């Protein structure tokens, strides 16, 4: 009896240790890729991240040196244009889902937004290629920005809806009971209360599309020089990395590593900003 109980005890202890061990290893495996990516980028790219990288145009084939200034600026321009399309539509659509509309229509819209979120990003590139590039007979910054903006819409829409729904109903009632109209209540009370969450959603969407390559392949196309007009092809960091990484030149490979390091650092910084933003005071945490 005594012996048996002790035996069971040991066996249970082993099972418990086994389970927590497997869980721990799984947790490590989750973080490991991030560590590996950063380690690889630092080892291979840190050496090529220098002043020239941020200020110079790509060097001609065969020449050593040069940088990715045009791609960095190009990515920022594309993000600005994508934001102009994706932010207003996404935010207002999210507010509509949370504040207006009937439950049935909203559940359909929500489902469609989730489907959009699941569409492979290269599909957006193809769609914009068909709609814009073919019609206007040329790759352009507009087309690239549009493709990224369209990807942003469902992302921002869903996060906005979620944080607006988190605003307690008491605030809406309090404003309406003061004789404030519905839309002013939504803009000045509800959206203001949810502003941190809305901004977080926008930043995360920008970080996400900032690293997209596929939708730019046949929209923005890439450019080895400065872009002088939004209706011309434009360079972007992910595109430049792609081009350089598949090239046969060692110097370009090093530059690709450097570009990837800069891009990942940028995305990382956005995520840290979001963490800091959402930490804040508890009262307006939404």
């Amino acid at each position, binding site marked *: 009896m005594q012996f048996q109980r002790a035996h069971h005890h040991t066996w249970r202890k082993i099972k418990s240790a086994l389970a927590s061990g497997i869980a721990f290893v799984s947790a490590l495996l989750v973080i490991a890729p991030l560590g590996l990516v950063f380690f690889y980028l630092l080892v291979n790219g840190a050496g090529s991240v220098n002043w020239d990288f941020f200020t110079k145009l790509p060097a001609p084939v065969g020449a050593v040196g040069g940088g990715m200034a045009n791609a960095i600026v190009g990515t920022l321009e594309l993000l600005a244009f994508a934001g102009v399309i994706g932010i207003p539509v996404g935010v207002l659509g999210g507010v509509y889902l949370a504040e207006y509309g009937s439950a049935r229509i909203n559940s359909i819209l929500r489902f469609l937004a989730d489907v959009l979120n699941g569409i492979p990003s290269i599909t957006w590139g193809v769609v914009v290629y068909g709609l814009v590039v073919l019609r206007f007979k040329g790759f352009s910054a507009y087309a690239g920005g549009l493709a990224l903006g369209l990807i942003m819409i469902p992302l921002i829409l869903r996060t906005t809806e979620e944080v607006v729904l988190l605003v307690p109903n008491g605030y809406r009632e309090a404003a309406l009971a*003061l004789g404030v109209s519905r839309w002013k209540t939504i803009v000045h009370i509800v959206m203001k209360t949810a502003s941190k969450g809305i901004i977080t959603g926008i930043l995360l969407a920008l970080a996400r599309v900032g690293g997209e390559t596929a939708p730019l392949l046949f929209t923005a196309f890439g450019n080895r020089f400065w872009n002088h007009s939004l209706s011309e092809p434009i360079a972007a960091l992910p595109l430049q990395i792609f081009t350089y990484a598949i090239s046969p030149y060692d110097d370009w490979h090093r530059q690709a590593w450097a570009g990837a390091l800069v891009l990942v650092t940028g995305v990382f910084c956005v995520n840290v900003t979001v963490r800091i933003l959402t930490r804040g005071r508890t009262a307006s945490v939404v």
Partner: protein
Amino acid sequence: METTERSVMERGEQRPAQPPEAEAPMASTFEVKNVSIWYGEKRAIDNVTMNIATNAVTAIIGPSGCGKSTFLRALNRMHELVPKTRMEGTVLLHREDLYSSSVDPSIVRRRVGMVFQKSNPFPTMTIGENVIVGLRLNGVRNQKFLNERLEKSLRMAALWDEVKDDLHKPGTSLSGGQQQRLCIARALAVEPEVILMDEPCSALDPIATAKIEELIYELKAKYTIVTVTHNMQQAGRISDYTAFFYLGRLIEFGPTTKIFTNPSERQTEDYITGRFG
């Protein structure tokens, strides 16, 4: 233990309730006639008719789910925010039909203010901004006027002395009782004629409750006040008239002294003496 309980009881009874002895012919702010309200298929208010006296406190009592809050919200059309609401009957505010098709609910709510059970100062705003937000969002821009109204409203809500140096601090930094008085100041700032209170003290401790009750007593000189309460002693202390609701019906309505000492209806007596509800 027993002595403290008794002394609290005695103090409660000694509180002056200011009851009008008979049903004096007072002016009515609201005339409610044959009002019924449905949420979908469910009837929440069943054919209620009553007049609400001007510059007096009317308390609405009754067990949970009896329609107290719905009735209160029908007085400033807040119940319409619930989808699929239907209403019959008329509500007159100083002889004007609140539900006539030409009336904008926002205007009704400016004239009939409301304080809620849970204090809800806007978390993104300072104490000062909270008070004048109703005016600002209704288009008032004159800073001098806003400042005057800010001080006046806070004084009327008996909060000025406590917060006058902290007007720039967040409204949510105040204590529960102060937050509720801030909400009262916010409601007063748009200069309503009536203040509706939906269990304004149910989330407060006894000291904060006493302050709000005192405030209600002072405010009735200028405003008509309708308050919903779960607390029978509170209804006895603060109100001039009491309406007892049960299952959506108005069972009994009259001067508070009469309702509490000599109710005409058996159900009222049972509820007040704690036999049900």
